[in-house]
């Protein structure tokens, strides 16, 4: 996918997450983008590795930095116990309005992922996206094995919570298949 469409998708994801009530800090965006790539196969092609709080893309961080430099994204500051979050600036909103048509085919995928993840906090996203990484990148499909592996790579995540995350991943993938299948049938 070219950089222009990739940028529009990133801005659209941030907008969709915020519209659905996500806190939308950097971690929320990183994990949601990973899910968009891995659950819906949206071809944004950011390179993700297991790093900060689960799957993390340095390319995506660079893209966010550049969108800030270009004036499309701004950082909002909040008092404790809230961290900074990202939102579209006026210029970013104008760009989104002008260019959204170019990525309309991904609207339903953006809707699905933001609907699933917007309400989740950092710790829950860390667990869920790590379980998704283990499942998709390492091919560990069994929930129990997945939970053990999540605990192995993120020792601060207890196995019982990792188990819940693995089960959530399973449900999310199944639901996406159902929704997608229905759309294709229609």
């Amino acid at each position, binding site marked *: 996918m070219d950089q222009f469409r990739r940028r529009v998708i990133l801005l659209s994801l941030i907008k969709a997450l915020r519209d659905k009530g996500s806190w939308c800090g950097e971690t929320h965006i990183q994990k949601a983008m990973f899910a968009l790539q891995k659950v819906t196969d949206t071809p944004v092609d950011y390179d993700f590795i297991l790093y900060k709080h689960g799957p993390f893309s340095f390319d995506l961080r660079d893209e966010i930095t550049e969108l800030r*430099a270009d004036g499309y994204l701004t950082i909002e500051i909040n008092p404790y116990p809230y961290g*900074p979050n990202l939102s579209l600036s006026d210029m970013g909103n104008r760009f989104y309005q002008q260019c959204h048509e170019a990525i309309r085919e991904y609207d339903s995928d953006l809707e699905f992922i933001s609907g699933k993840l917007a309400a989740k906090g950092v710790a829950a996203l860390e667990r869920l996206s790590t379980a998704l990484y283990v499942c998709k990148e390492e091919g560990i499909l069994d929930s129990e094995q997945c939970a053990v592996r999540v605990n192995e790579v993120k020792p*601060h995540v207890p196995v019982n919570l990792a188990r819940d995350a693995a089960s959530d991943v399973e449900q999310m993938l199944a639901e996406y298949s159902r929704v997608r299948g229905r759309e294709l049938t229609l």
Partner: protein
Amino acid sequence: MEVLLGKIFHEIRDPIHTFIKLDDQERAVLDSRPFQRLRCVHQLALTYLVYPGASHKRFEHSLGVMELAGRVFDIVTHSNHLLPELRDLFPQLNKDEEKAYWRKALRMAALCHDIGHLPFSHAAEKELLPDGWDHERLSRVIIMSEEMQQIWKNMTPPLRAEDIAKLAVGKRKAPDLLFNDWETILSEIIVGDAFGVDRMDYLLRDSYHIGVAYGRFDHYRLIDTMRILTPPPSGGEQDKSLEPTLGVEAGGLQSAEALLLARYFMYSQVYFHPVRRIYDMHLKEYLAEMLPGGRFPTTIERHLSMTDHEILVDLRKTGLVGGMPGSVHAERIIKRHHFKRLYERNPTDYEKNQQSAVLIKEAAEKKYGTENIRFDNPSQKGESIDFPVLMKDLRVESSRSLSQVLNQIPVVKTEYVFIHRDLEREASQWLNSERSGIINPGEGR
């Protein structure tokens, strides 16, 4: 040279850190062929053609990074500085021998983090290495080479080359290796986004050699206050991860602000200086014609045999004599006939049309030919938007919620259109008369 507890220590004078100390075993790395090569690789490529003092090399920078990495290690692993909830995550710190192992591995990783740098450092790295290669990958290959393995094995305790490679390049450049929390923290000490010691040393050292004051900050205070912390909450008290990361005590926040301000000034005033940027472009074009196949080699022997020195000799001859491959570009550097800045991104034009610079470049190419125009759009990369700050009551807060300064520091990005110097005057007049129509194509003049 000093003998302490049976170990021989060496002291090296350094303008930034006064003395850099290393023992005999570490000295063996310093004396190795791959490391000595860094004496001949300019830290800032051809920047010395703009700022004459900027002739420092990767060699002394690497020594500085080693020195700072050791200092940070001692601070963040001190038992009084570790949060109780994180102690269990780092069993490495409970045994003195293991702690000593990792301290030495970190210092050696810091010393070797740039060992794979190409001639002229970053100037031509992206375009002139084969796909999939960068200087970090070359560093990794050299650290793992037989020549270096012999040195690691002879250390007490022997060091594992893979540990050194991991810490030297970090997770981004070694995605195939699994990093545990401990290794992640150690690699962050060197290459971390917020206050890695690589960044600390190059800001201090570059500003010192260039002769500008704004790269300086109180790194003593900053290092003294660095801590391993959990991240601050994001969307409320309960919304936080427990994954450890590097942060600072509240008393170090102003020093961290100063570092990030220094970075902003150095990028906007030095690293993205238009003449420095166009010299890099001319150098890349020269190298593309001069190197066999237009690419830098990636085998160790050929890599180690090539430094700035060999290339500068050829560049000078090619530029002065002419008629050889690359001579047009070499002449632009040697005779200082570099292209001149025709246009630079500015807030007024950008607000009207975010494509202004690209449109002007395209119009200029159409008018004067692509061979007479160059376009450059450097941007700061990898800016973490936040880091944790430990308050006196042991709460961990977001740096952004505490610092108005951090919230005001812009990300540096610019765009330049350069033109052949013989056409500069005419093109400037042309641009003055056509500019409005180019930027606002629908409005006419």
